[in-house]
């Protein structure tokens, strides 16, 4: 029997060890698994490499992991926005390493890690500082940069609905990086608004097939006390 439901957020992240690479879905606060991040923060896992589009703002989400000194490196496209004070503080102090990746290269690198592809040539960043040290090639007169897959040990995802097989349906623009991260991590963990019974999700609306998802937790079912 396949049943990927877990009873608590704590349990869902319990085996994420120090030094793990952890993908975190979301674009700003859209489609971001804030409760799983909080469980991870409370657990105090250290030296993590965080792969996410942003670096968090104020005291919330990824910013709280940076504040608590749990992050060794961050791989993202847009670390700074209004209020990203903890990223700025840690970076300035040399306490966190940054790998800056153009957004479309970030999502495609994550996708190919999940799709078994060894690399791809993208025109993005050709001739710029973000292509320095990378293999380049001119194909049919256009310059391309070779980009490598970006896998991770764990992925923390946010979706609207799930079923016991781990199928996921998102809400509006909440998909963003979640579907690719589900593919690219060894263990993918989804925080969802609600878990429905098997057969209750419209198969035509499922965006992330359950094969990519190892654990689902309903966010209402339990709360991590702050």
């Amino acid at each position, binding site marked *: 029997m396949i049943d990927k439901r877990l009873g608590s957020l704590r349990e869902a992240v319990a085996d994420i060890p120090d030094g793990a690479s952890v993908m975190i879905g979301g674009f700003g606060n859209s489609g971001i698994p804030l409760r799983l991040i909080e469980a991870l923060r409370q657990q105090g896992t250290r030296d993590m490499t965080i792969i996410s589009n942003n670096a968090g703002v104020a005291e919330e989400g990824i910013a709280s992991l940076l504040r608590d000194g749990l992050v060794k490196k961050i791989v993202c496209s847009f670390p700074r926005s209004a209020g990203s004070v903890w990223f700025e503080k840690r970076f300035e102090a040399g306490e966190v390493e940054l790998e800056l990746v153009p957004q479309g290269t970030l999502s495609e690198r994550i996708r190919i890690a999940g799709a078994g592809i060894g690399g791809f040539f993208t025109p993005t960043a050709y001739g710029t500082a973000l292509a320095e040290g990378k293999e380049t090639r001119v194909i049919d007169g256009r310059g391309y940069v070779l980009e490598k897959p970006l896998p991770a040990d764990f992925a923390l995802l946010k979706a609207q609905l799930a079923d016991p097989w781990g199928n996921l349906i998102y809400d509006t*623009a909440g*998909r963003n990086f979640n579907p690719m991260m589900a593919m690219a991590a060894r263990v993918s963990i989804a925080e969802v608004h609600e878990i429905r019974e098997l057969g209750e999700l419209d198969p035509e609306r499922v965006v992330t097939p359950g094969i990519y998802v190892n654990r689902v937790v309903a966010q209402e079912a339990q709360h991590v006390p702050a």
Partner: protein
Amino acid sequence: MYRLDSADIARRVAQDIPDGSYVNLGIGMPTKVANFVSGDKQVIYHSENGILGVGPAAAPGEENINLINAGKQYVTLLAGGCYFDNAESFAMMRGGHLDIAVLGAFQVAENGDLANWATNEDKFPPAVGGAMDLAIGAKKLFVIMRHTTAANMPKLLRRCTYPLTGQAVVSRVFTDLAVLDVTPAGFRVVELFGSNTLEEVQAVTEARLLPAAEA
């Protein structure tokens, strides 16, 4: 010199967006362009986080935390709009499916090089976001910016001095003084605002400006 305010530059950009276009508006000043697109045009806005058919800002109390644009503002979806993941969103961009992208810039060079994501004076590492993908991806890249910096330094240059966002990517530049096309021969004037003369605009431009072509 005759200077357009930023609303009027945005209005001028809006004039050059044809009916039926698929358009991505960058964060900040470019986003304002949508306010000036004539109601008799149907323009479909793309948001890099995964929306096609972005509608107006969400009404107070009607915000959905997941439904935001690239600038993290709460938006709505038009009838006929749809959602997709970020890899698909950038496939759309990189694959040349968007007709027009409108971006801000620190510098534009006469060969079309764009510098809009980093300066040489950054204290912190800058954020690149989707700028480099947009720069190489859209069929036409419009830049909307002040003609000079706050310190009156030129931003239309022979070669960019700031780190590049993309090489030879800019199609047209809309400033507070003029509209200019990037051509194989360099910047060519499309329009001088108000009473501005080529000589006046040239005086605050490092790159050489070509007069408006008759052909």
